[in-house]
């Protein structure tokens, strides 16, 4: 079990998939010689050849459009989109075809497409490089949407996503790329569709995914000093959503705060609130609150720490639910 960063774990995941399934293809912008701007595909082209690992022209709709065709030809396309906001030119192909093709065929075929998208903020990047587009994908029927929060799960979830016969939007929290841990280089972790209790606690539940899981754990450590014992649920998989794990936690603590980077309005946090309210209403001791990015375009890097949910902001929300 080597200690690796999330970026390296993802590289291992792609390598594992390329080695174990000769139908896997990896492509995107700058993923060949350069190894991707985050080096997630580092040396893959050298090791697997440029028929299986290749750069494409600069066109995201093209990348997802050929993914559909490659899947029809029996390949397993794994594409990389360079940054979150550059996934938008592909939305039409994703919504109108990737998510619909199986349904349209009356399930006579599968669409084993993986679309990797580095996402989220907190790394001091330029405009369009820090967005959290998960809601667009989670609201689109026919897509699975996953996002790891640790190096080990990054490897595990990526290998599972590539194996999955359905289209998976694989979101990678950039702010965690350089986090490190020991990683088992076998996909022995939780499957897609299951949430993970990242920390057990009794007094309130924080629900988060991707980059905000670490922030919630940080919050839990801070709260501990005040004698508040927080549970942290890492969703991992937004679609399918593991409502059971979230609701069980809500029933146990009676108090829930959902934390995400994306803007509040119609963000995926609202879905979590709605599911908790629907299934655990009588256990709730307080309103389910959200701590999120504000309803602004993602702001310039020098003020992003005001924008992203901070430990302080999460504590303020917790105070409200704990004292309700």
């Amino acid at each position, binding site marked *: 079990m080597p200690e690796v960063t999330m970026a390296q774990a993802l590289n291992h995941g792609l390598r594992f998939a390329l080695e174990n399934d000769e139908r896997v293809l990896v492509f995107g912008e700058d993923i060949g010689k350069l190894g991707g701007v985050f080096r997630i595909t580092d040396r893959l082209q050298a090791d697997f050849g440029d028929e299986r690992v290749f750069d494409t022209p600069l066109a995201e709709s093209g990348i997802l459009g050929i993914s559909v065709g490659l899947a029809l030809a029996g390949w397993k396309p794994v594409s990389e989109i360079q940054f979150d906001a550059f996934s938008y030119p592909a939305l039409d192909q994703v919504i109108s075809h990737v998510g619909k093709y199986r349904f349209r065929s*009356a399930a006579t075929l599968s669409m084993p497409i993986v679309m990797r998208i580095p996402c989220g903020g907190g790394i001091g990047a330029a405009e369009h490089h820090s967005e959290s587009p998960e809601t667009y994908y989670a609201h689109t029927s026919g897509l699975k949407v996953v996002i790891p929060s640790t190096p080990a799960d990054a490897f595990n979830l990526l290998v599972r996503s590539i194996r999955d016969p359905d289209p998976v939007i694989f979101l990678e929290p950039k702010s965690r790329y350089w986090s490190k841990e020991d990683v088992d280089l076998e996909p022995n972790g939780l499957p897609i569709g299951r949430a993970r209790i990242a920390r057990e606690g009794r007094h309130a539940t924080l629900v988060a995914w991707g980059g905000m899981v670490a922030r919630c754990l940080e919050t839990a450590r801070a709260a501990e000093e005040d004698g508040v014992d927080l549970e942290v649920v890492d969703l991992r998989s937004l679609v399918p959503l593991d409502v059971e794990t979230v609701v069980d936690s809500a029933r146990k603590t009676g108090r829930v705060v959902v934390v995400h980077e994306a803007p509040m309005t119609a963000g995926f946090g609202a879905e979590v609130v709605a599911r908790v309210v629907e299934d655990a209403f009588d256990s709730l001791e307080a309103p389910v609150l959200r701590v999120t990015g504000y309803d602004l375009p993602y702001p310039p890097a020098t003020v992003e720490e005001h924008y992203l949910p901070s430990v302080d902001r999460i504590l303020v929300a917790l105070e409200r639910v704990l004292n309700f």
Partner: protein
Amino acid sequence: MTTDAAPDTVRILDPDGSVVDREGREAIDLKDEDLRALYRYMALTRQVDVECTALQRQGELAVYPPLLGQEAAQIGSAYALGEEDFVFPSYREVGVAVVRGIDLVEYMHFHRGTRHGGIEDPVGKRFAEISVPVSSQILHAVGWAMGAKKDGRPVCAIVYFGDGATSQGDFHEGCNFAGVFGAPVIFLCQNNGWAISVPLERQTAAPIWRKAESYGFPGVRVDGNDVLATYRVTREAAERARAEGIPTLIEAVTYRMGPHSTADDRSRYQPKEEIDRWERLDPLARYRAFLENEGLVEQPWLEEVEREGKELAAEVRRGIAGAPPRDVREMFDWVFSDVPPVLQRQKDEVTELMTEEEHKEQEDRDA
């Protein structure tokens, strides 16, 4: 009769059916029975097409986009393909479906609103799902062709789209990928002069076939109402694609002799004189004249084809008219390879809400 086609247009038959390009005609590798088959497919298609418009008028189809007038463009190109070549249609390719032996009842369920896509097992049938978002299917064809090439298979893809589709970004990205990767794909643009009510000159300021140059592969303009010409250029394109990975953009100049769809009123925008002019360029009449001139067909054979077309149309009618809706419950199983809890819960809800009557109907159908 030269005013009706622009220069640089590949044409073998004049509108009156006489051979204008003797050499081109000789170069075509078709036996007499193939030459007759081209007519047969066009005639069958015409009848099915007309029947489907009638079915829509009678409320049996929700909406139907006729291909009336475009038979030569579709049949000539489709007939030039090999069995293993893969067709990516838009929403107007019934003629291509006829040539490829697609089950037309299954196909028409799309237009009845019984099922999306229209094709079960598209991979097995080498015929992709009906694609409505204009030009989006172009990239699928390119991706498939790239994939087939990686497998070293001597095949090609063909993708059908209209003049309007050339304005979309996906057309550009698809052609560009094909040029860069040497994808064995044929871009078959049926330029029927109109994108619903928008005429070609509002779509682009340049000839469509010339756009191929932007991508580093050949483009060709063909008289889309001359089935021998569309056959020939497609055949050549397929060979280039399979043997050398060279894509081709074919602009088949034709005309939409019907409405955009049964919901459309073309009298609002198509000029009367234009309609009349193209009326005289009907691809079936032209090709029948050729076959008759060459002594390849006689009245009884034509009558037999007519009868066969009626029967096929009737078969479509029998299969589609009054066809019940699908059981909505099965659709919850179509989204993913497994049924996640939320879809299971929703499926249960639908099941509970179905009236007893509906349950009974469904059971009868299943039995």
